[in-house]
């Protein structure tokens, strides 16, 4: 049964995927501190491994057309174990929303408004996100096209504007680090920006296209997002060089160094603007998916009633997660990739394997 009856078109879906991945360009500090100037190699490998995740999700989408992630779990595992899997996904989506909200609050709190208490920023941001989520999937993804084009335009423009500061010697020495660092970097990239597209399994019934064509749009959106991420990393390493490990937000520092003429300096305000808009999209999408999972498990009539409650839980959860940014960075580089691997790779793979073994597919259910 569908709770939200909105319909989105295939191109909106594709740009939503691209926008979602582009919003993770803030999180480059996780793997840049690990593989310092070789981060571009690691991100290309991470992109290729992300394609494996993508293949699992498109296989699930093709086997069960017009079914949510929660409904797929119920079909494949039966009512009791399916609900347990869906509860695990509630925890994952709530944690993702809280983490992204915390990132956004930290960025605004450090770079733009240092004296404002964090909770004021978070609450005012979540009010707008809650308003968008109450409208449903159409309103959440309505501006994905505009955001993606604006972000890509700004990325390309700043790439050309930073031409004066690019020094290709900053990429050397190549392949100089122990192998474990490359493995760790690939692991971080494939799970933290690229693996979070598992949330798109929840909105499959709302897409207005025959489901065997959906793989093409999913892959195209993923490719747009991935290429943007790789371009940004290349630009940052080329401009900043070895200093890149010192910064929490490397792209911010890159844009600080751009001077077009004596009047057109201070480009970092562009970065702040696109970051806040992209994080708005990502957080409201994750918020929407959390609300949808909860209302699907308890079989509510509409998702609009629990929006405010879930929003309050996410805000308080995000203040509670880590006690400092340093702990966030440390855990994010070392342990979080393993935990995300469980939710993004292991659980969908188990679902797909059990579905193949039991020979269940949605067409046989007569639905």
């Amino acid at each position, binding site marked *: 049964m569908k709770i939200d009856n909105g319909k989105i078109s295939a191109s909106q879906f594709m740009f939503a995927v691209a926008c979602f991945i582009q919003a993770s360009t803030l999180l480059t500090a996780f793997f840049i501190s690990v593989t310092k100037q070789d981060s571009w190699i690691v991100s290309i490998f991470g992109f290729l491994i992300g394609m494996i995740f993508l293949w699992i999700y498109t296989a699930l989408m093709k086997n069960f057309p017009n079914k949510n992630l929660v409904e797929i779990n119920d079909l494949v595992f039966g009512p009791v174990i399916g609900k347990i899997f869906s509860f695990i996904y509630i925890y994952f989506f709530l*944690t993702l929303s809280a983490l992204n909200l915390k990132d956004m609050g930290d960025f605004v709190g450090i770079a733009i408004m240092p004296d404002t208490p964090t909770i004021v920023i978070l609450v005012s941001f979540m009010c707008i996100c809650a308003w968008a989520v109450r409208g449903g999937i159409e309103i959440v993804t309505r501006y994905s096209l505009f955001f993606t084009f604006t972000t890509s335009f700004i990325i390309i423009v700043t790439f050309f504007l930073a031409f004066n500061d690019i020094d290709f010697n900053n990429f050397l020495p190549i392949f100089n680090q122990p192998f474990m660092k490359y493995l760790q970097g690939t692991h971080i990239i494939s799970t933290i920006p690229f693996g979070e597209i598992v949330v798109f399994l929840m909105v499959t019934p709302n897409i207005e296209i025959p489901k065997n064509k959906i793989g093409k749009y999913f892959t195209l959106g993923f490719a747009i997002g991935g290429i943007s991420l790789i371009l940004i990393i290349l630009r940052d390493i080329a401009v900043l060089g070895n200093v890149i490990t010192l910064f929490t937000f490397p792209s911010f520092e890159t844009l600080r160094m751009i001077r077009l003429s004596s009047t057109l300096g201070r480009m970092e305000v562009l970065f702040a603007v696109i970051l806040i808009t992209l994080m708005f999209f990502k957080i409201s999408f994750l918020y929407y998916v959390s609300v949808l999972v*909860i209302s699907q498990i308890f079989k509510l009539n509409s998702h609009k009633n629990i929006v405010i*409650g879930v929003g309050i839980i996410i805000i308080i959860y995000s203040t509670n997660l880590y006690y400092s940014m340093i702990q966030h960075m440390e855990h994010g580089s070392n342990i979080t990739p393993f935990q995300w691997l469980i939710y993004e790779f292991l659980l969908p793979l188990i679902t797909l394997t059990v579905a193949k073994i039991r020979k269940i597919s949605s067409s046989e259910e007569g639905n």
Partner: protein
Amino acid sequence: MLYVIIIFLIISFIDLPNLIKKDSKKELIVVCSILCFGFILSSLYALGIDLPSPLVGIENFLKNILKLGYKDQ
């Protein structure tokens, strides 16, 4: 603390009368329990009491007991 109570009263006055009029028991229970959970969490935050974070707990479990984790250098 007083502000937390006032804000939750305002939120319940926005949401709950429609649900009570429609007389759907299950929705009322779910919405009320989520709001109660949020109320407890935010009053604990307003009183300054810190709860342990579940994410850190799971990550410590993965790191120390299952020994999955990269060593930081």
